């Protein structure tokens, strides 16, 4: 699932899909925590997932705000359109 998200991040050009891929990766990590917690009978795994959830919500808020600004600037959601920093 993590690899799926990673590949999505690398191959998609639409910013919304990139954000979604990041979410997938975060959930993959969260799931790994939960599985590990139930395997070793520790509550820490579920606690970590709650943290990740809160962080993901904040990240999405910032990410979507950036996407909005990006759209204003470039009139597109293509991540490759933003290459002004080319060396």
């Amino acid at each position: 699932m993590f690899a799926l998200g990673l590949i999505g991040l690398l191959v998609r050009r639409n910013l919304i899909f990139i954000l979604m891929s990041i979410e997938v990766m975060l959930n993959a990590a969260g799931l790994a925590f939960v599985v590990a917690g139930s395997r070793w009978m520790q509550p820490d795994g579920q606690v970590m997932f709650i943290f990740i959830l809160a962080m993901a919500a904040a990240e999405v808020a910032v990410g979507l705000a950036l996407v909005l600004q990006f759209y204003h600037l470039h009139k597109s959601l293509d991540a490759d359109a933003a290459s002004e920093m080319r060396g």
Partner: protein
Amino acid sequence: MLKGLWLIPTLPLAGFLVLAILGPRLARKPVAIVGVGSIGLSALASLLIAASFLASPPAGYAYTQTLWTWIDVGGFQPRIAFYLDALSLLMTLVVTFVSFLIHWYSAEFMLDDEGYSRFFAYMNLFVASMVTLLLGNNLLLFFLGWEGVGLCSYLLIGFWYTDPINGLAARKAFIVTRVGDTALIVGLFLMYTHLHTIDIQELMRRASQHWAGGSGLAVAAGLLLLGGAVGKSVQLPLQTWLPDAMAGPTPTSALIHAATMVTAGVYLIARTHVLYSLAPVAQEAVAIVGIATLILAGLSALTQWDIKRVLAYSTISQIGYMFLALGVGAWSAALFHFMTHAFFKALLFLSAGIVTNALHNEHNMFKMGGLRKELPVAFWTFLIGGCSLAGLPLITAGFYSKGLIIWQARAAASGSTALWVLSIVGVLLTSLYTFRLIFLVFFGDAKSRVSRKPGYAMKVPVIVLGVLSILGGFVDTPWFLGNVHRFSDFLQTSLPPPVEGQIHGVSELGSEGLVGLAFAIGLCFSYLVFLRRRNLAEALTARPLGKALHQFWFADWGMDWLYDKLFVQPVLWFARVDKQDFIDLLYTGIARLSELFYRAVRTTETGRVRWYAAGIVFGSVVFAAIVLFL
């Protein structure tokens, strides 16, 4: 009281430190109090020390005060120590006192200047360096003062640094004196390697023991020291920096000319007189340099239109007299002329400062005129100073000191008729250019309006100097005019008396009479040419020969042009040709290499965020692999 000797250089140094650290935050009044007060206290200290030195002279008429050991390396132990004898006492006294008057004057003169505290800081450091130079008992301390004086002259000539011309003049002064300093330091090393001491008195003692009269080493050392003295004291062939040094503020010029800097060379030669007695060739060279400089500078002074440049050339010419006196072994006569010159030259510069200040910084004499009534103080003091400079017989100080030198140029064993005649021609020239200056500036029709009158702080110092320019001469008079010899008697406790030679034909009275005659001829001629019949002067310069000479003299005998062609242009040419040598290649190679790397790495900066993400992934995979499998 002699214990307080260390105060004389320390007080101006303390003034400099206070002004350098706190100066910009202080108001003008405290700055003036610190700046002028430190020099005033220093002058007072040297006055008290002189009084106690005269009242109860120390053993051998010399006193050494050792403060601490400066450096202690492998037996080489220069000390911070001050040496006081008749020579250094006299010079210190004159230097601090004249400097005090100049500082007092500049408290008003510089009042409107932005860099008020900076100016006083530099001036204090200047005096501190000069006094260190005079009192230092070893060559290293002497050299410290010598270089300090050079540094301060650079700072003060370029004081108004926003104008690039002033910066150029400052650089010129620094570089030209550096040429002489190089000769000086080689001379100092030569003496140290052969005599193994840097204590000046000990050095002189050993020189007279180990070196035979006229030996090659003594001549070489004498000539090298002369090189240093020539640079500092603006003698031929290094005299080109002084006229340009007029770019500095007027009190600075007064300080450089009268008290500090240019007399350092005279002091150096008088201090090492033993060496010159051992090397008659070097001493003869001193006399020849002096006489040549005094004639050439006198002729150049005749053609200048800038009031301060005339005074600059007159200084060069008067220092030439001092060198002449040193060269014929009339040590005390040289110092006598140094003293009177300090009084009247400081006076002339300060009066000229009043004039230029009153006329919106106008320096062209041909645009002045008729200032006699407008600026009476400046006129009378300038007249006194000018008469003293030109040597008005019987009443002025300059007459007695110059007359003594001219007489010694004939009467001393190493003097000659040629030196004597040329030095009298020098009097004629001095009188000519001095009265040309006075007539153009103070007589005739007024050409500019006076906008500013001097206040008390500017008037009092020039009046004091005016009194001194007259009274200063009566400490040493010839036998037919009172026969006073207090000055030379005092100096002969540290300098030997001149060696009398065979004299035929003229007597001292005749010599002094000829000086008076030369003065009178110069006065009448310039009255005729520059006041009554102005067209005569123009007719003289209109002739092809006159015109060529005028231009030649005006450009200081083409010295600047010659040095430009001889030294500056070849160096520039070589720099152009040598631009691409292999050392440069090394440095440009490094630059090329980094440029190459830059080009290689910059292609990775695509600006595409997905590539960066891929890079991060690739990197983490590689690191994870390393951690897991290695």
